[in-house]
């Protein structure tokens, strides 16, 4: 069934169109919305697009890094200043999907997708959204908890503090190599100050309906040196607060069994 496509060169106009029509869906790279259309999703009657250049911008020069919602994973991989994000970007899809899929769209990707969002969550990212009541920034964590209700708002960009690349770690566990859907995805930002972790952020994908912070793990790491005892304590806390589900890639039981193992490997820098 044909749908109405509304294209705007201005993000604000696209946001207004999106918030004025409940059934409208925003089309980014197409890997989610076109897929739904191909599957025969008749709930989509209107597609809204924005070709605003501001949404394709990467600003990695200041103390905060800002990535426009329309930036593709291929663009991230071409950005030398964002080397620490290359592992999560490369773990997504094949080359075609990386040429299409966007950072903004990834925030809405259901399990087993959304790996990049796990990385952003560990970077303490905020999301700039434009709704009918104007624009605002919100913490990614908060955004994800209410993701289903964000339909009427347009994501403009994500931003996070510039970090020292070596303090960031990422691991995606997949059964199919080189590329497969996530069994679980782990990301950690572990800044070290005088030999101790200060400001630990650990995020898990596929361990709950949306990517979530592993707060018990963060508590086990905070203020400690990253030694064997700390790593063991963090691994023991890995399942706390999680609610994984079953899917074709793995069962909830399996995910609970392996998350501590992979967290230990992530923290101890094993391949």
């Amino acid at each position: 069934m044909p749908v109405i496509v509304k294209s705007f060169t201005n993000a604000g106009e696209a946001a207004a169109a999106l918030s004025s029509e409940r059934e409208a869906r925003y089309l980014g790279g197409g890997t989610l919305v076109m897929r739904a259309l191909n599957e025969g999703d008749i709930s989509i009657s209107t597609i809204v697009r924005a070709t605003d250049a501001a949404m394709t911008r990467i600003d990695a020069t200041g103390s905060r890094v800002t990535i426009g919602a329309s930036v593709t994973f291929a663009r991230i991989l071409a950005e030398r200043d964002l080397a620490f994000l290359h592992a999560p970007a490369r773990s997504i899809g094949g080359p075609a999907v990386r040429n299409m899929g966007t950072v903004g769209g990834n925030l809405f990707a259901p399990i087993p997708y959304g790996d990049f969002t796990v990385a952003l969550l560990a970077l303490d990212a905020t999301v700039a959204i434009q709704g009918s009541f104007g624009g605002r920034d919100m913490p990614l964590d908060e955004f994800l908890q209410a993701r289903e209700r964000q339909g009427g708002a347009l994501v403009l960009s994500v931003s996070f503090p510039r970090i020292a690349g070596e303090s960031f770690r990422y691991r995606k566990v997949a059964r199919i190599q080189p590329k497969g859907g996530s069994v679980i995805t782990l990301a950690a930002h572990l800044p070290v100050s005088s030999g101790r972790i200060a400001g630990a952020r650990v995020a898990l994908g596929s361990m709950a309906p949306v990517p979530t912070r592993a707060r018990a793990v963060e508590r086990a790491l905070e203020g400690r040196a990253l030694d064997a005892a700390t790593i063991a304590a963090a691994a023991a806390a890995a399942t706390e607060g999680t609610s994984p589900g079953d899917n074709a890639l793995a069962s909830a039981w399996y995910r609970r069994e392996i998350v501590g193992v992979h967290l230990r490997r992530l923290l101890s820098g094993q391949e």
Partner: protein
Amino acid sequence: MSKIPLQFRHNGREVAIFVDGGTNLLVALRELIGDMTPKFGCGQGGCGACSVLIDGALHLSCLTLAETVAGRSVETLDGIKQGPQLHPLQRAFMENFAAQCGYCTPGMLMAAKALLDRNPQPSRAEVVEAISGNICRCTGYEPIINAVLAAASGGRASA
């Protein structure tokens, strides 16, 4: 609902068609232009059979909204040979038995072309990565990887 006029470059030739809102590029190519080389596999972005190059970059035509290619250049397998001359990749696929049922082959060739166009001498790992979004259920991938490497080294020999 009115049709949307759409103009773009298809294998070096300007084309003008009318599409319905929401039509994907694969449907536009196959049903409106008659280029049957990109295949419909999954419609979900999982198989790569519909892969085409848009402005030189590999895209999945089934997940591309047709009207977004307005004014851009779309290259499909149909455009890579020159007259009766097969493209070096096509020849290498033939010589290395890289096609069995052939359904994944157009997508594989376009993914391989996207790689060789920017990296004429890829490593084996780079070839594996380049075709990682393309599924083949016949060959077990080895003949395909070998064919891409052969095409790359063949190009080097003749250069």
